[in-house]
């Protein structure tokens, strides 16, 4: 594979695409949002179980390209257990990296496993794919707490 292409489709991304983690529905999720990227037709459902401002469990379902699927898979593994604010901060940083606003190694390294998406910045049309899961998660946070609203 070409070097630039390899940067985009790192082995970790290909693995998560093939074997996505947390690819399921959480039956007792109290937050949910549907993400849609009309350009590619990607659809992602994000299920979140929040408890005391923390992400107790998070999962996703849907169809999309390797980048969006791997992004959802990695995101869900990493934010599980984090307080909501920290997950949102992480998204800010992640977004800055994939849009090329942060390029220094140190900052990128702080993203941990998510650093594999740094190659996306060379593919502007794929930024939306990488960020769809995150946008959808943040939208889910903002949704009414379902366990409350159904009472």
């Amino acid at each position: 594979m070409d070097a630039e292409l390899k940067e985009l489709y790192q082995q970790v991304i290909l693995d998560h695409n093939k074997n996505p983690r947390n690819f399921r529905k959480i039956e007792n999720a109290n937050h949910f949002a549907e993400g849609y990227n009309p350009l590619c037709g990607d659809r992602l459902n994000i299920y979140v179980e929040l408890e005391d401002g923390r992400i107790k469990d998070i999962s996703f379902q849907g169809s999309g390209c390797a980048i969006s699927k791997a992004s959802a898979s990695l995101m869900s593994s990493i934010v599980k257990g984090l307080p909501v604010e920290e997950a949102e901060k992480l998204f800010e940083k992640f977004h800055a990296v994939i849009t090329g606003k942060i390029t220094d190694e140190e900052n990128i390294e702080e993203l941990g496993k998510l650093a594999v998406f740094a190659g996306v910045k060379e593919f502007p049309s794929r930024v939306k794919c990488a960020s769809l899961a995150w946008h959808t998660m943040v939208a889910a946070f903002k949704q009414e707490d379902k366990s409350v609203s159904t009472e």
Partner: protein
Amino acid sequence: MATEIINNNKRKSTGFDVNKIRADFPILKEIIHGKPLCYLDNAATTQKPQSVIDTIVKYYTSQNANIHRGVHYLSELATKEFEDARTKVKDFINASSEKEIIFTRGTTESINLVANVFNKAILKDEDEIIISAMEHHSNIVPWQLIQDQKKIKLRIIPIGDNGEIIFDEFIKLINEKTKLISIVYVSNSLGTINPVERIIEEAHRHNIPVLLDAAQAIQHIKIDVQKLDCDFLAFSGHKIYGPTGIGVLYGKEKLLDSLPPFLGGGDMISKVTFEKTTYNELPYKFEAGTSNIADTIGLGTAIDYVSQIGLENISLHENEILDYATESLLQIPELRIIGQAKHKSSVISFVFDNIHPHDAGTFLDFEGIAIRTGHHCTQPVMDRFNIPATSRASFAMYNTKEEVDVLVKGIKKLIEVFN
């Protein structure tokens, strides 16, 4: 049988030589990501031969002036070049007069023009327009825009699993409220060639006019509007080796005459006072403002180029490539072709079980292969086949079997990496 022999002879005598044709298109020598360009996105837009490029350069270098209004030399020269292009279009589709050839920005504007003037002059609440389930968004949305003002209904001809319209269902949709049938001649996402002759015949038995979206037909199929007897025909210059920003609306003179203008402004009037304005004659009534002069003349050159090679020769070659590509792609078990109509143009949409079209598109790009991925502005078709998107390879007169081999090799590599 007889026509086959004639075609073959013709082909030999005109000597269709794909390498010679390729040499006319400078962009085909480009290197993309270190690989020779393999351009298979011709349904989106075609590349331009040197003669078209030269025409535009020449126009701006030595002929530029505004048309129809000046008495000076350059204005008369530019007007003549511009009107010559109209005659070339007229001859190319065998319209009966230049009055029937209206220049627009493209297929989209042509359809919007018809929708607009139909809305103004003809459509009333409860009227119906028939389109098909395989329309490009440009033949859906203009009609929906009217629905914001009037209670008109869009009736949709369904399509079967093979990607053909269901003709019996079409017949059932026709009634006394039907005011227009607006249908795509060749589908840009499925490649289906619709039975437009039968559709027009059926429509005319009920005195209903027919608009053909010929955006994907004009570059592949010889069109004779008088023989076809369509009432309107829309196409874009950039899909027939011409420039972007120029298109055509053909309309029968009588029909165009009876319809009100679309846009108002210069060129479309004959006399303006603050009390009353009279409109110019056809086709100028529908061409308000300064036209896209350079690209219109460029379209004329593109038509010259296509005519010189011959649409029959072009479609023979393209069909050969289509058959070869279809056969080759069917050998790949992980790949499924969407759209398997009996009559197809050189468009192949395909999907993989486990690989998203966007990954395929990006991956193949690095092999120098340009294909289109997405919904191709036909979201209802994607919904019909229950897929989010497809990858699409579409062929033009300059494509070769070797390029099909490059595509197939690229796809095999793609499957290796992603599966």
